[in-house]
């Protein structure tokens, strides 16, 4: 009662060469056995990210099961640990437990070798969130970080202009200012913001993002951003590249800087949305971690069952912009809350 | 002939002058004794001679027939007062440390030499045991073996036999005598004056960091040395008066504080033991290493599991309390604390607490001061670290701490280990006072003199069983006691006996 694996899936010419689906997988699918779709991420216990990707995996799996019988598993170390993630991937490969892999490598291009090993063993690989463009992967699913940052910058600048807020200096911070994704967001933000205010003064540049704690916890943000804003009264706009935006909102409230200092950033949580409601935070971008995991899982099924894979390997997901009042291509705070609730 | 001279050796620790311009001139040929009260500077002198610490000033010269030696310490072997051994290593490995031989391969000292020394000291059977598992007596003998195995010109023995029995000491002195006759310098520090009489031709008396007197040849007698040692304490008893006369009180009626009936050790170190611990009496347990006497003391001290004939485990019942003091300072001294804190370490809230049930520093200080005075501890202040005290003074503190506990039974291994003679008398008196308040004292000691001085009753063990009981009221002098003890210990058993060393290790 299995499916017929299309020839387009059995072998396929990719830009990087010839891909041949493992005969083991073909046999399995044609016998009607369950396909194992594995989502390997950097840290299953990372705040927001881990939980949302699990939800995305589940949602993707439901769609996948419409075209073939699939079981989806999320693997990866609880916290980022390159060595552990790598040996887990090797173990899974050797024991033939993966029929399609959706992978978030810890750093760009870092897992090129192991991805190639999977591809050579006839297992399709998609990357998500962080890419390995040099490797034999089928496609990459993520936000376009620069573009998302740019949209954020443009939207923030527009709101500032509309509300007639006076901005002296803009600081940019991140939980991981050393990471390429964070730097890309800052780069985009600068570009977008400067497209409206060409003379805007930035406290720091892309390479020197203000560190706010490498564990992405709000506690750390409080301990670092509070003194920073205290010491630099000139900074009246703070762009944060990640979850830390929640802490920045808290700091503005704690220091009673409402209406004087503003923030923009990434991710959603109840507290972030509330800060937008209060007007302290102007813009946040919901990265849709769930979508980033959901899409490649669905694509795995598409490939195995129909032999389809996107022609353009760069599959950028639409950034979800949330502002107080909403607007064209923007969600309101309330719509953001709805989405958050649905994600549970 | 080898000659060791020291000129104006001075060593200060803070405000203390441990050595105060000491001059020394000794030659090889016979064992030279060094006597002195606790804290006189004997161990410090040893450390200077062995180069373990640098003197503040002064000069030490070792003259061999072929000229002066450049690095004196290289020709010096030491037996420390507290064994400097490696508890994580086996006896055999301990011997090898520092003289491992070739760089590569299995590490061991010359097996024949090691075997010979260990056999001579009676610990060959323990060669492969880790030292942590062995008793102080064995550890001390390992320390001696280490010195014996080194080829040195000067041998320093700092109370080497403070945990050895009469016979074991005798064997040690024979060996030391051989070394001396072989042309080495041999120095002996001890508080057992009798040791000087039997083995030394020359005794130096060290007081307050200087050599204060010298006794030679036939003049050496216990009284003579004691006279020098106690010279300044006019009111002190002479050593022959040490043995007080509470024997009259012995045999008092009353129920025993604790009754042992056919008790045995879990690990079989002793069995079939029946003793009544009577109030007011001091019982001495005696026996060579491996006889089970030390283990019995530990078991009475509730430090080692003991069971009754029916194999049920046994601890003092009801309201009977026990305090126990081990022989090794490693097991009695809290080296991270001050003298005063050590004196109070065993006390509870009752003694230390103020009205608020909190610790009262004033109270602690008062207890400490009292203790220092009562036990005659020579220390600059109660807040000095305990490690800055001399060996004997540390012993007084440890002893004080356990006596201050005021338990019904007190069990002490080697009560006066390393304590000088004038303090010994005080300690015996304190023990007697303690007993007189309706309590019971059990001591395990290896020195006949001490048994004679302190005990009301002796229980002799051999091969894990009681082989004799001596009521001290019947004993008039030390030789008689020595003979009785030797007699019991050499009693043949129904089956051929094993050499002492072949028995179970004395797991500490």
């Amino acid at each position, binding site marked *: 009662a299995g499916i017929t694996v299309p020839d387009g899936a059995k072998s396929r010419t990719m830009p990087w060469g010839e891909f041949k689906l493992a005969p083991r997988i073909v046999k399995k699918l044609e016998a009607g056995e369950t396909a194992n779709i594995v989502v390997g991420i950097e840290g299953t216990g990372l705040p927001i990210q881990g*939980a949302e990707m699990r939800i995305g995996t589940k949602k993707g799996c439901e769609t996948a099961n419409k075209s073939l019988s699939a079981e989806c598993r999320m693997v990866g170390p609880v916290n980022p640990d390159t060595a552990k993630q790598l040996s887990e991937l090797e173990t899974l490969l050797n024991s033939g437990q993966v029929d399609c892999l959706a992978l978030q490598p810890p750093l760009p291009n870092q897992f090129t070798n192991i991805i190639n090993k999977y591809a050579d063993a006839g297992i399709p690989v998609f990357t998500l969130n962080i890419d390995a463009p040099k490797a034999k992967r089928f496609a990459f699913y993520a936000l376009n970080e620069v573009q998302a940052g740019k949209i954020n910058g443009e939207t923030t600048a527009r709101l500032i202009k509309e509300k007639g807020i006076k901005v002296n200096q803009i600081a940019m911070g991140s939980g991981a*200012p050393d990471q390429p994704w964070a730097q890309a967001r800052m780069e985009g933000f600068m570009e977008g913001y400067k497209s409206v205010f060409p003379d805007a003064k930035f406290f720091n540049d892309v390479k020197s993002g203000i560190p706010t704690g490498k564990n992405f916890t709000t506690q750390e943000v409080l301990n670092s951003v509070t*003194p920073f804003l205290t010491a630099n009264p000139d900074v009246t706009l703070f762009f944060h590249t990640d979850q830390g935006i929640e802490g920045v909102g808290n700091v503005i409230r704690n220091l009673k800087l409402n209406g004087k200092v503003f923030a923009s950033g990434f991710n959603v949580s109840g507290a972030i*949305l509330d800060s937008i409601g209060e007007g302290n935070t102007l813009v946040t971008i919901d990265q849709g971690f769930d979508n980033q995991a959901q899409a490649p899982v669905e694509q795995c099924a598409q490939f195995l069952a129909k032999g389809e894979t996107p022609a353009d390997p760069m599959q950028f997901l639409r950034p979800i912009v949330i502002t107080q009042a909403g607007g064209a291509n923007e969600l309101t705070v309330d719509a953001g809350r709805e989405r958050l609730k649905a994600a549970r | 002939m080898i000659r060791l001279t020291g000129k104006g050796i001075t060593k200060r620790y803070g405000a203390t002058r441990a050595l105060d311009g000491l001059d020394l001139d000794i030659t090889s040929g016979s064992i030279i004794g060094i006597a002195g009260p606790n804290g006189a500077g004997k161990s410090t002198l040893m450390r200077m001679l062995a180069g373990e610490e640098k003197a503040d000033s002064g000069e030490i010269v070792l003259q061999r027939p072929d000229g002066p030696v450049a690095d004196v310490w290289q020709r010096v072997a030491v037996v420390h007062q507290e064994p400097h051994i490696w508890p994580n290593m086996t006896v055999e490995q301990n011997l090898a440390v520092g003289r491992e031989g070739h760089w590569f391969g299995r590490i061991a000292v010359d097996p024949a030499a090691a075997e010979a020394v260990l056999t001579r000291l009676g610990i060959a059977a323990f060669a492969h045991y880790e030292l942590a598992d062995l008793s102080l007596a064995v550890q001390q003998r390992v320390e001696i073996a280490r010195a014996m195995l080194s080829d040195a010109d000067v041998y320093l023995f700092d109370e080497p036999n403070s945990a050895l029995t009469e016979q074991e000491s005798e064997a040690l002195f024979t060996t030391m005598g051989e070394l001396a006759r072989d042309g080495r310098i041999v120095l002996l520090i001890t508080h057992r004056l009798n040791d000087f009489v039997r083995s030394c031709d020359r005794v130096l008396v060290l007081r307050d960091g200087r050599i204060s007197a010298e006794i030679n040849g036939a003049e050496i007698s216990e009284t003579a040395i004691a006279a020098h040692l106690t010279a300044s304490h006019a009111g002190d008893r002479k050593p022959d008066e040490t043995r007080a006369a509470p024997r009259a009180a012995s045999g008092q009626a009353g129920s025993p504080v604790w009754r042992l009936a056919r008790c045995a050790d879990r690990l079989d170190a002793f069995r079939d033991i029946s003793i009544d611990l009577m109030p007011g009496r001091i019982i001495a347990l005696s026996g060579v290493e491996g006889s089970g006497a030390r283990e019995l003391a530990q078991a009475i001290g509730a430090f080692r599991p003991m069971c009754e004939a029916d194999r049920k485990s046994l601890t003092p019942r009801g309201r009977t309390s026990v305090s126990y003091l081990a022989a090794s300072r490693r097991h*009695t001294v*809290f080296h*991270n604390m001050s003298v005063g804190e050590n004196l109070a370490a*065993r006390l509870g809230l009752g003694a230390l607490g103020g009205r608020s049930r909190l610790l009262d520093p004033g109270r602690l200080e008062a207890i400490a001061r009292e203790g220092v005075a009562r036990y005659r501890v020579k220390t600059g202040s109660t807040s000095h670290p305990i490690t800055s005290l001399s060996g004997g003074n540390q012993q007084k503190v440890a002893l004080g701490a356990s006596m201050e506990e005021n338990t019904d039974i007190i069990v002490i291994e080697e009560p006066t280990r390393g304590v000088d003679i004038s303090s010994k008398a005080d300690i015996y008196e304190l023990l007697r006072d303690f007993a007189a308040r309706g309590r019971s004292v059990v001591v395990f000691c290896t020195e006949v003199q001490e048994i004679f001085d302190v005990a009301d009753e002796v229980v002799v063990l051999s091969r894990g069983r009681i082989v004799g009981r001596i009521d001290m009221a019947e004993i008039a002098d030390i030789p008689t006691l020595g003979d009785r003890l030797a007699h019991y210990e050499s009693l043949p058993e129904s089956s051929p006996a094993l050499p002492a060393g072949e028995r179970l290790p004395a797991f500490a």
Partner: protein
Amino acid sequence: MTQSALALLGQQKVLNSLRTLGLALAIVLIAVIVQSQRSAFLSPENMLTLVRSMVALGMVAFAQMLVILLGEIDLSVGAVYGLAGTVTATLWLGGGSLPFTTPLLVALAAGLGIALLTGLLNGFLTVRAGLPSFITTLGMLNVADGLSLLISNATTFTPAYNEPLPPAWELSFFHGLGGALMAYDIPVETLWLVGAFILFWILRHRTVFGFRLMAMGGNAEAARVARLPLKKYKYVVFVLSALMAGLAGILDFSYVGSVGPTQSSSLSFQVIAAVVIGGASLNGGRGTIVGTLLGVILLALLNNGLALLGVSSFVQLLFIGLVTIGAVWLDLVSQKLIRSAGQRSVRSGTGAVA
């Protein structure tokens, strides 16, 4: 210095009390440098921020100091910190993997209860089974982390926006535990820190418990001979350590307003670092509460100062490393100096008499 002051230095007691002087000096030095660069440093707001940032670290470190004083170690505190918060949140707010919710007070009791349980287990495994506490608590760290993730399903909980919203009194009670502001905008959480400091200072320096911990940690073998209740005390310190970690986790949850999965090993690491910087010995038998507090201050001050100065994250790491080493070094050197000055004075004193 006058002769008499120098003579005072010779006294052991004075020496002991000056033990952490060098560390205090290092702290003052750093503060002066930061203040000279950023005048906002000494502002009341920033001081409040600084003190607030020490709360969890301090509370957990005081208890950890007792564990270390006894010669043991508790690596699991970071995980217990997370677990207590997560358990409380999941039970109270729902949304994790538990099929039911409970009122706030029950949830709080459960959060502290599971911390207590971990402490007891740590004690049991170390005392009864005789495992090295490094292993026991390392294992427990993993177990607690795993539990916390399993129970919460790695969700982030925010009481104020929860669906359904908890009753208002629960919200305000919970906020009042740590997050609410008192006069001068001082958060309640700081009171807990002060309370913990006083409590642990008394426990360490003015009770038989603390006195005996020192003895046991200095020489466990001698403690056994003296029949001090070693086993019982081990249980107690592990339980105290776990309870403080759990409490700190809940208080931080209240202050921050949300709780999610945390990186647990980093708190454990920081806590132990603070204790060791504060002069405690990992071999046991040495350690004071004031020293630990100084260690905590040093670490918090470094983070605060570097954030004020706006130093880049790479350079921050460099500084943290160098300053940690430097501060402890300064402490050692100043101890040596004081000690030898004291001895010199004593000697010249006696010299004058002689």
